[in-house]
Structures are given as C-alpha cells and as structure tokens.
C-alpha cells in the first residue's frame, strides 16, 4: 500500500528546500511514516525545524529557517480547508513559532507541487521568490520596497498573472519589526514575527502557482465526510449564527460580563464601553460585507468601512475580536472608527494587532503613572481612552516612525530597554507578556485555565493553544468553572493536543466549534488513506507535535521558569467584577500539567514519554 507514495492522497508528496541567495534547491520526498507521525502544517513544520535548525541561531540571521507548510486537507472541499502555516524560530520570543493563515497562498503552494517550502539563507537584495510547478526563480523587488501588503500583493499578481497566489510582507516586515506578520489575500499569519524573518531573508513576496491538483485517497468517502462536516457547521449555532452574524466579536459582551475582558493594560476585567464595540454594533454601523477564507462556509470575516470623519477607512478586514479588544478595551478606547483605522494601519503595514494594542496600552499605563512623559512619546498625550493617541501610536509603530522605531520591538524589549535606561522596576512590572509574546483578550484571573494555557503555550502568550475560554467563559461544550483550578491541567492539555491536530490538518479552529476530532479523523483518513482509524490515534499526533515543540524550546534554553505569567496576573487581585479578588493560581495547575503531560518536574518530557510518542 505504502509503495504508491503520498502524491494525490491529499499531499503533493514533496518538500522543497531552498538556500538563498543562490536558490540552491533540494527536493525531499515526504515519506508515509513521517506523514503519519506529523500529518502536515504545524506538525510537518515542527518536524523539519527541529530536525534541520541549529540551536541558538539568531532568528533574524540567514541561518534561521522560514518554512511554509500546507496540510493534506489544504485546498480540498472540506470546510475551512484553506490554511497554511509559517513555521520558524520567532524573533519576538526566541521560541518555536507556528503562525497560521487562511489566505490562498497555501493552495498555490500545493498546486505548485509542494507540501512545504523551506527557506534558508538570505537574498542579497529585496526580492520576489517565484515558484512555478516546482521551478524556482528569484526576481528583483525594488519596485515593491515600502509597499503596503495590499499593494504588494496586487502588484505581484499584476506582473505575474492573476492565477498565482501570493504571500507577502508589509514595510514592518522589511524593517525586521518582530511583531510583523506574513499576509496573503489580506489574511495574516499575524503573531510572533514571521514577517520579520521573511524580511530578513530579503523576501518581499513569494508567488506560487502550478498545475498540480489536490486529489484524495477515497473520493466517495471524502465527499461524504466533507458533506457531514459542512452540515455540522451549518447546524451549529456558533458557526451558523454567531460567527456569521457578528464575526468573532460576537463574544465580546459575554467576555465582558464574565469579567475577563482585559481593560487598560489588564488593570480591569470589564470595560464600560463594551457594548459600543460589540459585534452587533459593528454590524449595525461599520460592516459592509461578509467575506470568507477559501472553502469556508462560516464567513466570520467582515469588511469595515468608515465613510467620513478623521478616521476614514475605505475598506479594512474585520476587525476580529482580538483586534477590536486590543486596540479598543485594552487601550480604553470605545470608538469603532478609531479601532477600524488602527486595524487598517496594522494590516497595510503588516503587523500583529494583538501585539500592537498591548504596546499602546503599555505606553499608556506608563504615561498615566508618570513613568513616561510627553517628551518620551513624541509629544502625545498618551492617556487611556484617547483615540487620538491610540491611532497616532499605532501609526508610528506601523511605520517605525519616531518613537515607533522603539515601540515596534514588542513589550518585552521595550520594557527591558526602559528599565535599563531609567532603572525603575515598574517598567518591567507593567509589561504583560509570556516569553515575549504579548497577551490576548482573556484575563486569566477570570479564566484560570487560560492562564495555564498562556504559560505553557509553545509560542508564548497565546490563547490559541490551550483555548479553555470556550468552556470557562462561553459555556461551550458543557462549560467549566472559570475561577477554579481543578481539572484545568487536563482541559488545557486536551485543548492543546486537539488544536495541534487542527493546525496540522489544514482546517480552521472555528470549524472545530461545530466538530470534534471524530470528523477531522474521517476527513483525514478519507483524504490520505493513512488509516488513523480512531480520533484517539489522531489526537496522538497532536500530543506528539506538542512534545516536539517543547523539545525545541528546551533546546533553545527555555526552562520551566519561563512557563509563567506576568507579575500582575499572579499577584494583583482583580479589583472588580465577577473575578474580584482573584489572581491566577498557576503553581498547582502547572505541577499537575507537567505530571499529566509525562514531563518531569523541570518540564522536560521523560524518556518514556518520548519513546511512547516515537520522538526518542
């Protein structure tokens, strides 16, 4: 059976290694055993990165590797199966990084005959990498220098043809800002600085096209499995009603009611203007249209338009919940037009909205506490709630202008720099990040599991690894007591493993609100013929991948001491709201987490666990 190879079974069957600047190429056949162990996407990327990257390299040096990985379902008719991920060593955190994107570039890579593209070295000049049916060419991109993501993608398509699919970076990526993302079809692989790594390789854009088609192992079974998966999405209230109507922002008011909406740099868990920025309000006032990533029946994505006023926006994608929260509540801003404007700047210049909102909020708190003066922030009156200051700061960070040159480096570096200069420990205490990654929109004091999730996420402070907020705050899947720690270690582990499967399958996390691993297993088996047979076996892939990224981070020098949270969340009790008086009770959860993971007390996977997972 295995003799037939993987081509035509969801996979393209090969990985292309490319060494810049001379474009030396090496093709690697993807082996069936590897595919079964790591599936694709995150798993495949982690496998290659752990195997091929030398420990300790500077993420922005030519020795780092930039991997674009697709999955066996990418490009198929399975719901939301459009995704690719960028895997690299993060310049923001120094950890493993996988950043996912629903744009069309992944399908382009597949059609060009590649499951993954691995880029080492760096081009001498700003370039476009063109991949056509597996052939590779580096073209001069000086004409694109400084171009926004939207213009760059349009220009590449104009010059190379509408049928090619593009991944590109904005000016922030060119500058090497460690909060820069990779963009495709105005969707972003936003978090962790993959755009800076791409910029450091001298790549403004990558264009891919080809004549390979995505086939599957068993057409009838795959049609059936896809139909059922689509139908479940059409039938589930979250994916059929909440997300289509009010985007991912449908949850904002609920998160506020539970006291978990981080406000004014995590000083509070409720925001007085939450109802102003709820999904319903965006729908009523700013959203002009719904758009979907490829093959997605949900269409959570919206297009916002601000017709007049100081923050006119012709079109901006979303904003989604995280962007609305970070540029809004976290900065104390309840003005939708200003949030839309800031969101547009982030997308066009190519930076992560979550990190940017955190940076602005950090500056605002330092300013309000008198730690920073107007002179330190280009004369801005950087008070919480000032939409003018928020947009001005986002503008500066996007462009790297003025104080933006410093702020674009992320909260961790900003705070360490200020502490080194001014010697006040408050600069460090007010910095909200885990391993250097700024925190997302769920205050873990009001959702303890999220705290453990942030502390143990393989890419730093991220909600999309152990997403327990569904159970803890939104009542999904039976719910869980948000303030308790009991059972949270298991919950976090289950979510992390599941998410690693989803991220390796080519599907979107949102499809998973309506589905379980059972449906993913049916899709994967019908597409690949890899014969996982049960969702338990597929979950094993997720566990394997999560252990592998752990090994990567340990090899890079991270220890259990880094599996922690900012001081504010561990020591400052929530002042008001449903979680009043609570801090994150991390220690017992973390201890139990290591135990259940099969890791020793130092958070190192035990030999027997690695043997069990085939990672020894």
């Amino acid at each position, binding site marked *: 059976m295995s003799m037939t190879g993987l081509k035509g079974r969801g996979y393209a069957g090969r990985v292309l290694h490319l060494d810049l600047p001379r474009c030396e190429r090496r093709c690697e056949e993807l082996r069936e055993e590897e595919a079964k162990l790591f599936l694709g996407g995150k798993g495949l990327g982690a496998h290659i990165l752990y195997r091929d990257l030398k420990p300790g390299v500077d993420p922005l040096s030519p020795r780092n590797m930039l991997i674009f990985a697709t999955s066996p379902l990418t490009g*198929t008719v399975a719901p939301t199966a459009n995704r690719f991920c960028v895997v690299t060593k993060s310049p923001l955190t120094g950890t493993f990084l996988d950043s996912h994107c629903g744009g069309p570039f992944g399908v382009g890579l597949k059609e060009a005959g590649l499951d993954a593209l691995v880029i080492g070295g760096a081009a001498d000049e700003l370039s476009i990498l063109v991949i056509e049916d597996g052939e590779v060419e580096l073209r001069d991109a000086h004409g694109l220098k400084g171009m926004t993501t939207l213009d760059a993608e349009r220009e590449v398509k104009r010059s190379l043809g509408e049928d090619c699919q593009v991944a590109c970076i904005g000016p922030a990526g060119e500058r090497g800002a460690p909060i820069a993302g990779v963009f495709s079809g105005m969707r972003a692989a936003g978090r962790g600085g993959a755009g800076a790594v791409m910029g450091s390789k001298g790549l403004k854009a990558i264009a891919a096209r080809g004549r390979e088609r995505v086939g599957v192992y068993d057409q009838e079974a795959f049609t059936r499995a896809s139909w059922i998966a689509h139908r479940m999405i059409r039938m589930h209230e979250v994916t059929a009603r909440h997300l289509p109507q009010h985007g991912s922002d449908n949850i904002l008011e609920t998160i506020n009611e539970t006291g978990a909406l981080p406000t004014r740099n995590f000083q509070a868990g409720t925001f007085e203007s939450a109802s102003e920025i709820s999904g319903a309000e965006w729908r009523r006032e700013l959203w002009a249209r719904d758009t979907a990533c490829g093959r997605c029946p949900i269409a959570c994505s919206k297009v916002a338009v601000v017709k007049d006023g100081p923050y006119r926006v012709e079109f901006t994608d979303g904003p989604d919940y995280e962007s609305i929260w970070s540029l809004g509540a976290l900065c104390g801003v309840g003005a939708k037009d200003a949030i839309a404007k800031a969101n547009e700047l982030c997308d066009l210049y190519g930076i992560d909205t979550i990190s940017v909102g955190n940076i602005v909020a950090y500056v605002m708190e330092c300013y309000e506490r008198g730690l920073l003066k107007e002179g330190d922030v280009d004369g801005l009156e950087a008070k919480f709630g000032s939409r003018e200051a928020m947009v001005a700061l986002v503008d500066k960070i996007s462009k790297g202008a003025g104080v933006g040159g410093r702020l674009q480096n992320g909260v961790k570096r900003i705070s360490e720099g200020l502490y080194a200069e001014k010697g006040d420990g408050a600069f460090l205490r007010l910095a909200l990040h885990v391993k250097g990654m700024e925190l997302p929109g769920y205050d873990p004091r009001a959702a303890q599991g999220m705290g453990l999730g942030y502390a143990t996420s393989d890419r730093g402070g991220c909600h999309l690894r152990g997403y327990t907020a569904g159970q803890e705050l939104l009542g*999904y899947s039976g719910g869980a007591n948000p303030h308790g720690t009991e059972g949270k270690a298991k919950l976090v582990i289950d979510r992390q493993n599941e998410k690693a499967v989803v991220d390796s399958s080519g599907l979107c996390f949102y499809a998973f609100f309506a589905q379980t691993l059972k449906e993913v297993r049916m899709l994967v088996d019908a597409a690949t013929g890899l014969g996982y047979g049960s969702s338990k076996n597929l979950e094993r892939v997720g566990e394997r991948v999560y252990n592998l990224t752990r090994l990567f981070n340990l090899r890079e020098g991270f220890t259990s001491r880094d599996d922690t949270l900012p001081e504010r969340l561990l020591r400052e009790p929530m002042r008001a709201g449903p979680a009043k008086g609570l801090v994150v009770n991390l220690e017992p959860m973390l201890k139990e987490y290591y135990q259940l993971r099969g890791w020793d007390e130092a958070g190192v996977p035990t030999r027997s666990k690695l043997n069990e997972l085939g990672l020894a």
Partner: protein
Amino acid sequence: MGLGQEMRLNRIFDPNDGRAVAVAADHGLMLGPISGVQELGKTLEKVIEGRPDAILLSPGQAEDLCHLFMGRRAPSLLVRIDWTNAFRDRTYTLPVRETFFSSIATPRDALRLGAHAAVVYLFIGHEDERQEARHLALVSRYAAECEEAGLPLIVEPIPFGPRVTKSNYSELVATAVRIAVEAGANALKVPYTGDPESFRDVVRASAGTPILVLGGYRALSRRDLLDVIAETLGVGGSGVVFGRNVVQASDPASVLRDIRAVVHEGRSVREVVAGGALSKTTRLRVYAERCSGCQVCTAVCSFTHEGVHDGSASRLRIEGEWPGPFKPVTCTQCERCVAACERKALSRSSLGHIDWEAERCNLCGKCAEACPFRVVAIHDSKVKICDLCRGAPECVEWCSKNALGAIA
C-alpha cells in the same frame, strides 16, 4: 406494553413501515411566543395539509385546538405532560439559573384530551446528580401511570448540563436512551448525534424501542434536513419529530411532503431535492449579494466532476477579490454553445442541462468561444460544461449562504 398502549402506538407509527413523521408544536410552553407558535391554529392548519402522522402539543393547546384532531384522516395527538426551564439560555429575558422540571399534567389528563401518547423529558448531565435521580423517579412514575391508562409514553432523553461535552455527547445520548428504555419508554424522541456511525450505537442502545429523531433549534436547509432523516433511517431510526424546521417554515406542508417522501415512500434525498425542481426550463439562479467568495462551489464542482480539486476544471467561477463584492458566474443554459456546435455533440436534455456526447465531439472549441460567460471550456480532452449535476446541482447544495439557487 399493554393493549391500549400498543393500539395507540400503532396510530402514530404507520403499521406498514413502522415509521412516523411527527411535528412538535409545544415550544410555547418552554420558550414563550416564538415565531410560528403565535397563531398556532393557523400554522397547524398548514402543517396538517402535509399529512403528519402526529402532532405534539401542550395540554392547553391540545384543548384549544381539539377540532384539528377530529375526523378519520386527522393526525394523532401527542401531549407533553412535563415542563422544564432548561432551554431558556442567555438570549432570554429570564435566563435559567437552575434547571427545574415539573409535572404539568397526568397521563389520565392526556388521555382525557384524546392523546395517543404522552411525551416527557429525561435529562442526564446535571451538575447536581440528585436532579438526575429526581428526574428519573418522575419518568418512572409517568411510565407506571401510562401503562395503567393504556397510553404510550414517549421519552425524550437529552444530555444536558455542564458535564456534557462535544466529545462525550453521542455516548451520553446512547446512555440516556438506554436509561429511558429501562425506565419504561414505549418510544423515544432523540437528538441526532451528527453522524450515522454514532447514531447506530444509539439505535443499538434502544433495544428495539422505536426512535424518532428531533430537529432542535436549527434552521436546516431542505437537503440538510432530509439528509439527517435519511441517515437515521439508514441505521435503524423510525422517523422524526421536527418542530421549528416545520412550524417556522414558509410552507410547512411542502416540508412535510418531502419528509414523508423520504420516511414513508423510501425515496432518496437526491431524488426528492431534485424532483419537481428540474425541467426543460431549469436554470441556476445567482444571488450575488449573499456571496462571501469562499469558493466552496468551485471546489465541489471540480471535485464532483473530475475527482480532484482544481478551480480551472470548475463549471462555474467566483469573480471578485478582497474586499469584494463577489459574484458567482454560472452557466445560464442559454444554449449558445449548442447552437455553435457543428457536430451536434451538445443538446439540451429534458432535465434542463446541456448534454455532451463525446463520440460526436472533435474538441474544436467553438462551444467555448460561443459561451458569453466563459464557463464552457475544453479541459483534459473533454468539454467542461455545466450539467446541473443531472438533478441536484452540488454548487447550490453546498453553498451555505444561499448565494446560488436552482429555479424551474
């Protein structure tokens, strides 16, 4: 089961096939005046035109609307004799804080109203397990009283509560079904587990007690609705009790006719969906303003026709890119390709689609040139042309935004 119970059950389940199509219209009791139940009498008149085997009502409505259940061809009457506040989620003015159940009528009351069966809930998954015990005691009492009254008891076993998760859901349905059977249920009203594989386990757990699948709040498309029914019948289900999908439909009778076609007449979903819709004049209809640009239609088109995912092999395309607008461009059956073909390889069939005969074709490409919408092409030595999937166009079926439709 007593004789009276058996006789009455036979009024609900068609003795020819042992299956039933029932309509639930007791929502007002649990949810208040939701749409469709405001003027219940008028709605039910339309429902009855579709010839349901039975209708489920609260005791009050059963009394008010008794005239609908008189006469030989009238549907059977099912009466709900318990009540719960469990369904009042946070979208209601008074969301539930603690779940309660009450008995609101006895089996004898139901019998007096002319009922052919009584219906009650059985929830498992409560935070407080004493609730479950109390609930089971209530159901067991109903079972005893029903037996005494000669009235069949239909139990609705539902996993509900904080301990129910996505991954344990189908297992809990099977467990709840078994508990209900052991407690004395004569028939069951059961939520669908989402896929036929796990529903088979539910049917096994019922040990021969007939299972009717319920619809839930979901607004299902006609095909989704019929598909769920066909899947449950395929693994041993005995029919449906659908509520909002029927009473809130613009034409409840036509929904019921389609359901009956699948449940009682053994017709395939594809046949029912396609049947009647396609004719010599069938066309695809585009509602561009609803399109989100997701390309599911183009993917499923190429996958259905060519077995691979290849946009260029699709018989339709989506125009427009971010930020939209998007516009599906489809074949309109304008027949210019037919007219342009000198070898008569193309013709319009009685089902409305363009037929391509390979033996007559020399792949000259004149059809493609003639297509004003550029959706006809020569692809891999074949004429790539929309055949309306010879019945139920897949692009229409898979479009979750209803941006595509088929009109006769």
